[in-house]
């Protein structure tokens, strides 16, 4: 009985360690800088965008995401009001640069088009 309790406690400690290390990895990958568009879990059909930065017609999106279940994330270009203008479904750690249709007001970001929740770290920048 005592041996079982020891094994159980050891398992709990190991599991807690694994959880802590994964959590730390995700947290350290996130930042609160101006280029961050949403470093979080994205539910299906959830997206996060930001207005393009000054001063060129191009605006780039970059993301990393959990590839355990899905290999693609969708990058989007929308109007200031949120109307869909363009989208690109692409792979892990890809940078894709859109040409804005309304320079200075269009938004870019990431969108989860997959069937399940996905952890995404999405950023944008003006090239």
């Amino acid at each position, binding site marked *: 009985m005592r041996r079982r309790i020891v094994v159980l406690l050891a398992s709990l400690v190991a599991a807690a360690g694994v959880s802590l290390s994964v959590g730390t990895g995700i947290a350290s990958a996130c930042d609160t800088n101006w280029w961050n*568009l*949403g470093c979080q879990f994205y*539910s299906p*059909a*959830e*997206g*996060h*965008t*930001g207005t393009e930065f000054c001063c*060129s*017609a*191009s605006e*780039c999106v970059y993301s990393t995401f959990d*590839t355990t279940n899905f*290999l*693609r994330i*969708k990058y*989007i*270009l*929308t109007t200031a009001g*949120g*109307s*869909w*203008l*363009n*989208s*690109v*479904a*692409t*792979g*892990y*750690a*890809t*940078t*894709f*640069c*859109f*040409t804005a249709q309304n320079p200075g007001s269009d*938004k870019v*970001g990431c*969108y989860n*088009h*997959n*069937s399940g929740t996905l952890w995404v770290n999405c950023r944008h920048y003006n*090239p």
Partner: protein
Amino acid sequence: MKNIPHRGPLALALGMLVVVAGITVGAVTLQSSKAQTNAPPPVLSFRDAPLTPELREQLVKAAQSAGIGVGTLREVAGVGTPPYRASIFIGTTSDSAELVALRMSNGSSTFVPVGAIMAGERPLSVSVSAQPDASGATGHVQLVGIAAPEARRVVVDLANGKQREAELVRLERGATSFLAFTSDDSSTFPVAVRALGADGKELAVRDLRSAIAPVQIANISG
């Protein structure tokens, strides 16, 4: 005189030869033009690639930041007319590394090694772009793909249930193939892409239905 009786059959034989040769030449010419029709799209120099000034500037910046000489840039597998064009740009760095950028519509990825794109996706990596029509439904789709050597054929499943063989463009260096596909007609939108091995066995399938679906704007913040 004594040859005269033989001239008739000889002339007949020569005439038949001419006719047969004519038919052969005609058939070869026809085959050649058919092959040209189905031939992969040409490789274009960066100067000749159809680009908007904005996209040209963007690609130049991306190439320079990756250490690629702009003079080495080529557009391969290009199909469609801007702004609904799909292709892959290839450039060479000073240490002879080949990097690729995926071009879809009036945008492109940055330049990265083929190996980085194929990581975890071998033998087939597919990226797809979509834009709305006037009603907000998907109106235009562009697709680019990279196939590893073991993928001998790539087939595109269309929305109308038919299939289309992708034209694989292979450069002189390396065995990797590139492909591109565009459609502005919902019946021929690509809904899946399949890589097939030498024995016809299916090696990979990439489902594209959610990738080309309209973006539901109600769920976007920011």
